[in-house]
């Protein structure tokens, strides 16, 4: 019995491996969460990747060959993400893998890729621990330190002294809250409370009422679309929105909210108005018939584009050559998410953000 099952498994596995079409294309890999709790962000990352591939191939591909990105689902599970990364490296023999979204997954797959001498490009995780992954790891998204400094300065400039931080109880939220607190207290402000909510709840009234009891000068919050919509709605319903709200990544926080609920909110967001940004936004709207779902699609797009540029420059897709070229290309590279410049540890050193305020008639750039 056992022997028979094992035999069939082997046959199945071999068959599946043989069935993978021979690759004439240049292929790189991507691991994103297409199922599980972060599927919305993962899908948006995939869209960005897809748009970049379309655009690159329409313009002649990489090194004269069509580019292909093999997108694998991590399921939000570290073991599955590692399955996917190992499959991309060992079977598809890709020179580079981009992804993931959650820091808890990006770290192990990044470390694995570095061990294998492959390139890793982080497109969604902002934990400062990403910095230590290793010599062939890059980030096209600014890590916490970058965005926290910006938003803390912006908040302090509004004259708010006592603030409450509201964020999701996950790796992103923890990092955001921690980073913001450090930077804000350096500027003399005080974080009176940090409220990390469990994602995906059907109501946040209780959390909002707890936060309101502190009577802060402002709430600093960050939330993914679906949670953000509910939080904004309930803050409006409870009248908690009479205190100023400041959104970290404005579009992500308010994507699904009705404008009435978020009028008067302050915030910061990624700058899409780089040379490449406007056309990217339009391409996205054209292909998917909607505004960005989250702030994350642009990083997927930029990662693929910058890889293609570096490969073309290096004249090869061999990881070490592309790495060297990436460092060269990554000096004032005009990305959809703004100018990309890598620091000495290959992390995005600066990110231009917008300072925003929502008004009755639209969005003001402050």
């Amino acid at each position, binding site marked *: 019995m056992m022997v028979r099952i*094992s035999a069939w498994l082997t046959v199945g596995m071999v068959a599946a491996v043989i069935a993978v079409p021979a690759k004439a294309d240049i292929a790189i890999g991507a691991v994103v969460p*297409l199922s599980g709790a972060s599927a919305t962000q993962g899908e948006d990352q995939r869209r960005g990747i897809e748009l970049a591939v379309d655009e690159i191939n329409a313009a002649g591909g990489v090194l004269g060959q069509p580019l292909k990105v093999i997108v694998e689902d991590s399921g939000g599970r570290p073991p599955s993400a590692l399955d996917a990364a190992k499959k991309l490296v060992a079977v598809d023999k890709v020179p580079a893998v981009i992804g993931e979204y959650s820091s808890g997954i990006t770290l192990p797959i990044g470390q694995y890729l570095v061990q*294998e001498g492959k390139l890793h490009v982080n497109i969604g995780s902002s934990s400062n621990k990403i910095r230590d992954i290793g010599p062939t790891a890059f980030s096209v998204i600014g890590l916490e330190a970058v965005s926290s400094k910006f938003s803390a300065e912006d908040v302090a400039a509004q004259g708010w002294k006592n603030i409450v931080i509201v964020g999701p109880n996950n*790796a992103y939220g923890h990092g955001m809250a921690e980073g913001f607190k450090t930077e804000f207290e350096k500027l003399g402000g005080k974080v009176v409370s940090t409220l990390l909510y469990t994602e995906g709840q059907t109501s946040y009234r209780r959390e909002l009422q707890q936060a309101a009891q502190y009577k802060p000068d402002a709430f600093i919050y960050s939330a993914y679309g679906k949670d953000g919509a509910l939080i904004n709605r309930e803050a409006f319903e409870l009248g908690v929105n009479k205190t100023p709200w400041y959104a970290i990544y404005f579009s992500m926080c308010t994507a699904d909210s009705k404008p009435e609920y978020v009028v008067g909110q302050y915030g910061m967001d990624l700058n899409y108005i780089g040379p490449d940004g406007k056309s990217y936004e339009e391409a996205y709207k054209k292909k998917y018939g909607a505004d960005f779902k989250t702030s994350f699609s642009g990083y997927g797009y930029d990662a693929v584009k910058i890889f293609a540029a570096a490969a073309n420059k290096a004249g090869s897709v061999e990881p070490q050559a592309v790495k060297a070229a990436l460092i060269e290309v990554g000096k004032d590279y005009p990305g959809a998410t703004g100018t990309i410049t890598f620091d000495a540890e290959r992390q995005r050193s600066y990110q231009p953000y917008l300072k925003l305020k929502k008004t009755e008639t639209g969005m003001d750039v402050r």
Partner: protein
Amino acid sequence: MSEFALHVATIAALYAMLALSLNLQAGFAGLINFGQIALFGCGTYGAALAFSHALGPLAGFALGLVLVVLVALLFARLGRNLGADYWGIATLSIGEILRTIATNEIDITGGAQGIGGIPALFDTGSPLSGRLILFAVVLAALIATWFAFRRLTQSKFGLSLRLLREEPQLAAAFGYDLDGLRRRIMLAAALPAALSGFLFAHYLTFVGPDQLFASETFVIWTMVVVGGLGSHAGAVIGAIVVQCLFALVPFAKDAFGLPSEFVAAMRLVLIGGGLIGFLLLRPQGLIPERIGGVRG
């Protein structure tokens, strides 16, 4: 390719240990544990906490054992005067509470960001040979677990487990201390689960609360049900089958040009469909339990 196969085999062996452990509880003793992943989590966090306090892997292993003994005793304590289905819900809640603590106690557990950079157990200079040695260790642990569990279940102790599963009232009438039995089974089953977690932490080099979702428990359940409740070989085969199917889904996607969402839904369909299909059509699993196996 061989590298990928090695990875699939390592993960399959780690899950096979979890499946053996769950099978001892559910298959032999009828303890419907929906918090199995918490036992695994004791092992992963044992390794991670030892690392973050600059203690060696040996200390990590010991810490994992201490944690898992506490959790196993708590589970067993809950098992008192609870029906099997109620106990399932109770263990599920404890698993969720422990995951919540792991997520929130940032100062201790690193919170949602977890603890990364845990060193590989065997640093031989080349990552591949390190992974080969780790796989050998995992395999040895799996085989040791298998033999130990087989010895348990083929002995008179195993008979008392099965009596507890089938007719607890009869077991009590025979004078078996049901609470004590539950405690011993939970302890026996918890050790390999924690060992699996410990090795997993050093293999993945990262430990975080996202590894402890209740859905992981259900993956292990599918392995056990597919393989056959009450059969050690079944649990191991079930783990291999499910892990291989998981690993193969992306290839099927490439080969047939299916959209990526397919992979996402497919994983749920494999777990849910595998469970329900086997329960309905082949409840004894691939390798049925042997009745009358205990003799001289």
